[in-house]
């Protein structure tokens, strides 16, 4: 049986984490190719429904990356994200989806290395969790 290659979706905010991802690329920091990035203007744009939709549509893991608290380009966007993801995490758990399949991290524009680190570590985590059981649930 071939090794499980997870599909990971990452929502990256334009000002910090997307720039950080860019920097990681430019600096040739290696990270696994399982990740697909969707750029949003702010991590506060990420509705929890996006995460659930991603997990229902074939993603094995979802990353939400934003600016550090206090650095949000729109002041408080990432405050909202943090609170929402806290609740989302719990709902996922109650529904039977491992909350570790979703992670919220802050990555600044200067943190190219950190971006690669976060992605690598998350991919490993998802590999260990295995394929997303929600895929079977879809009729």
């Amino acid at each position: 049986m071939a090794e499980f290659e997870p599909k990971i979706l990452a929502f990256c905010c334009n000002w910090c984490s997307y720039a950080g991802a860019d920097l990681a690329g430019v600096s040739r920091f290696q990270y696994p190719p399982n990740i697909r990035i969707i750029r949003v203007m702010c991590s506060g744009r990420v509705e929890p429904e996006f995460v659930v939709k991603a997990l229902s549509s074939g993603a094995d893991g979802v990353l939400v990356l934003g600016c550090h608290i206090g650095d949000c380009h729109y002041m408080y966007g990432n405050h909202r994200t943090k609170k929402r993801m806290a609740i989302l995490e719990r709902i996922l758990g109650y529904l039977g989806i491992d909350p570790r399949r979703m992670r919220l991290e802050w990555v600044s524009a200067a943190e190219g290395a950190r971006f690669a680190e976060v992605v690598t570590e998350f991919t490993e985590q998802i590999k260990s969790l295995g394929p997303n059981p929600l895929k079977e649930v879809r009729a």
Partner: protein
Amino acid sequence: MIENIRHLARKWLEAKEVDAIFGLKEQDGYIAPHLFTDASELDNLTISTEYRLCYTCRPLKEDILSLMQGKEPDTRIGIVARGCEERALIELAKRNQLDLDKVKIMGIACTLEEAKECKCEKPYPSNPIIGERVEGVSEDEDVNTLLNKSLPERLEFWRHELSKCIKCYGCRNVCPMCFCKDCKMEQEVFCKTGWLPPEIPMFLFIRWYHISERCIGCGQCEKACPVDIPLLTLFKLLRRDVKDLFDYEAGMDAEQEAPLLTTLDEMPIKEEVPSGV
């Protein structure tokens, strides 16, 4: 008890403390929600736990109380309200859906049987004018059963339950806290329209997430579900989490801001509360 309520209602109307009373009327062999504008009608005023939160029911985009306040903003309405109804009014007012200044609450405390039937944690309003406060139901069997299941068991449980859903939107229509005119649950982009069962778990997830911090625990959603999906169970867990994470309980304090509408500085998350895994 009913005589006290009628007496008080009559007093309020006659003293012009309110212009109308929202309550239940016995008419033609059945009970129905009614707006009493004349003291003479009050002989038919009655109470029943079966009909709660009628004024926040929203099948066609707007509930009756909002409609009334929209048409006649100066009318003061007295509402015969139980604990859950009062919490609904407070929480809605917090979000500018109602003018609480024009509403006068006649609080009724529920009896022990009524509390057990609703699995209610707080079966009394803040100042019950009528009835004695009783202890709410603190231990919920359904909640414990869910918590005792492993993750795969929970997924299987919800897969079974949610595949019964017939997309009646009843849970949304009766929920006092659901008031969006453009509802996400109806949007094709989240759940394919015209398909049964609606996308699992997305359809009901939308409500579970959106109502999480505002859920007043009235249980109307579960009561309106034709296929008995245990919606309240998940909401109860979320209410507990919202309390743990933000020290917030919906509908209890009219002055306290809601967590998801505030910044971390105004209302921080209490550090590292374990998730319900």
